[in-house]
Structure formats: structure tokens, C-alpha cells
């Protein structure tokens, strides 16, 4: 193989065809409210951990839909389960339970 000093670079494009529906259905069975998010960002705005480390329930849900569960977990790894997001969610999502459920379904441990 020839080394040209540069090569193909990774793509950032979301490919919805890769979405793992079965796994998401398992999550929704545990916590149906995951579907109710309307991406308003209230949770991220009040997030205690988010002031120090990028943390966002909203973005994590989006990443799950976008076939990047690894990124979703990354966005939640600093969560302290303080529950402020649950208090502010206008759709009344039990975000703490949702976060725990995501960890359960998608977590490696």
C-alpha cells in the first residue's frame, strides 16, 4: 500500500439506517417516557454536572435515536442523579429513571 501522506477521514454523518430498533424498544418497555422528549433543553440547562462536564439528557436521547448509544452513555456518565432535570421537564419525564434505564439497556457492565 502506498502512503500518500493523507487518507480517507471518518464521517460524522448520522445514518438512521443503523438505528437499533429492538434495543430501543427494550428501553421504551422499561421507560416509555423516553419517546416524549421534545428536545427543549430544559434538562441540560439546569444540569448540575453539565456545568463541569458535557452532560445532557436531551442530547443523550438524540444520540440513541441517531444510532450512537456510545455517545449517549458518554453524555450521561457524569450524571449524579440529583434529579433537577426531572423537576424541570415540561413533559414530566422521569429522567432519573430514564438515565438508569439507558444504563441498564445500553451499558456494558
Amino acid at each position: 500500500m502506498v502512503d500518500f501522506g493523507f487518507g480517507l477521514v471518518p464521517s460524522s454523518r448520522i445514518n438512521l439506517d443503523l438505528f437499533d430498533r429492538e434495543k430501543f424498544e427494550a428501553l421504551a418497555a422499561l421507560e416509555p417516557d423516553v419517546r416524549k422528549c421534545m428536545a427543549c433543553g430544559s434538562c441540560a440547562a439546569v444540569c448540575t454536572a453539565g456545568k463541569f462536564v458535557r452532560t445532557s439528557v436531551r442530547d443523550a436521547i438524540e444520540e440513541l435515536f441517531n444510532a450512537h448509544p456510545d455517545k449517549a452513555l458518554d453524555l450521561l456518565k457524569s450524571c449524579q442523579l440529583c434529579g433537577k432535570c426531572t423537576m424541570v421537564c415540561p413533559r414530566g419525564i422521569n429522567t432519573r429513571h430514564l438515565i438508569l434505564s439507558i444504563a441498564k439497556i445500553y451499558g456494558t457492565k
Partner: protein
Amino acid sequence: MKNNILIIGGGPAGLEAASGLQRLGYNVILIERSSMLGGHLASWDRLFPDGVSARGTLKGLLAQMDGVKCFTDTEVRSINRLEKSYNVILSNGITVLADAVLVASGFDLFKAEKKEEYGYGIYDHVVTNADLEAWFNAGPDSDTRIDKPKRIGFVHCVGSRDEKSGCRSCSKVCCATAVKQACEMKQAFPDAQVYCFYMDLRMFGRHYEDLYLSAQKDYSVRFIRGRVAEVSENVDGSLLVKAEDTVAGKPLKVTLDLLVLMAGMRPSAAGKRVGKLLEMPMEEDGFFAVRDGILAGQRSGLPGVFLAGAATGPKTLPETVAEARAAVVEIDRYLSDIFPNVKNYKTLVRERW
């Protein structure tokens, strides 16, 4: 002698106003360009937000038309303003001396093929909101483009909020229509994955937000905040759709078996012709101007010419019906003022409440 009122347009606005004016005792003549009454409602299947039957609603409107002279397949050929009224010659040869004219010319659906990058009329599995309603009406085998789709996308704002296609404004009804149709497609194809591509979800009316929530919760519709930028066709005939997920801030692609374009509401071409004959003022967006958007929403800039429904911009069906009733009141006031000596026979038969 009674006052003659000419109503141009046999859609929901024209029908509702006609029955109201007839009931007050006026002599009402309604003309409709096409061969049947009902306008766009006649080709729709179910109505948001509660899914009531469009056919049933139209039946309700038509049931009160007794006494109204209706001419279908009829257009205005010429209009001349006289001192207090209008001399109107119709395409069927009849001349009407109208003391008031109600323009209820409605809207045209945006021609989706004008949004070239979405490939309507080019790619095999791209349809419009109207096509989908026709398919709901006519049954599963009525449209080969809709072939047991497993992945379905809805594109909001097609020909709306788009200066490229000559329309800056919002068409108001497409968001709710898209969400309604998304749920209906899920009912038809429970295994399908359904996506809605939106910029803002304008679910402003009563029960609309419930419809949205239900689409998410009960029908698993995925809402993606991003305008579809481009559609193309794969070698197997499926569609490749590109947008940005603006929540994630990343470009996105998805393969779909069916794409539904939410064609917006544009000024009716036939209405524009009438407007030209009357020299009735229009706004930049092509819809007719009203005298006062709050206090005189049914009055045009011309004496004795009134407006109702989507002729003055995108409206929901309840708004259209309410405007038609408002027009009845406005016309009645106007005619009582201008023709104080004409005795219109007001109905004495009380409704049975």
C-alpha cells in the same frame, strides 16, 4: 325584491356563508369552478386533530344548502361595478346583479414538483399530503407509489417558509396534518418506522399538542428538527434523504420507502383571476388584503366585496367556517346600511335547539 349575493367558491367557506345568508332571507347564488362542491375538503379523508371524517363534515355543510342557487363548472367571465352593485357575467351565460359579492376562492396546494430537490414527479416513491389523503380514501391498491412502506418520512414546510419557492410564510395546517398522517400511516403499517422532518412544530390549536404527544408516545414517530435538503433515489428505488439533525448539529441520512411532502397553501390561481377582474388589492404573498386584520377581517378594499376563508391566507377548517359566519354578519350589516328599503325576508322558522 331581495338583495342578490354572489358567492364565488364552493368550498367550506362558500358553503357555510351561503347557507347562513340564505337563512337570513337573501337571494344567494353560489358558483364553483369545478364540477363538484366542497373544495379541498371533498378530496380529504380525515381531519385533524380528532380524525373526524372529511366526508361527514362536507355532508353537514351541504345539508343546509336548500334554496341556494348553485352553479358548478362555472367561473366569472366579467364584473362591472355599478353605483351600488356589481353586474357579473358568468361563464354559463347567466348575468347576476349582485348587491354583495363574497370571494371565497380558497387556496391551491403548492405544486410540489417546484421543489425540484425533493423529486416529486421524478422519484418513484415521493407523494404529497393530498396524494396520501386520496390514497386513504381510495384504498391500499390505489397508488403504486405507496407499496407497503417500512420506512416513511414526512417533510414539513414544502413550499412554505421558503423564499426559494416564493413563499416566505407558514401554511399553518401542515404541521398538524403531517402529525395526523404520520399516526395514520402507523395505523396502516404498524411495523413501519416513521420520521417527521420539521423546523418548528406549530401545534397551536386545541388538542393539537395532544396529537403530537400521541404521535411520539403511541405511534413512535421520530421528530427530527431539520429541513430536508435533498432527496435522491437508490439503485433499488428506495429514497436517500438528507437533512441536518440540528439538535445534534450533524448531517444526517436515512433510507426511506416513502416520502410525503407537506405541500403548503398558495393563493388560488382562479381566485387571482377574479381578483384581477375586480381590481381587488392583494398583499405581497399573493393572498387578498383585508381592510383591517382584527376588526374587519372579512371586508376587502372594495365596497360590497367580502372575503372568507383561505382567500386571505392559510386557515384551518374551523377558522374558515368561523370566517364564513363572520362574513354573513358583515354582509348583512352592509346590505342593511346600503339598501335600507329592501325588505329581505328574514326567516321566521326558529331552529329547533
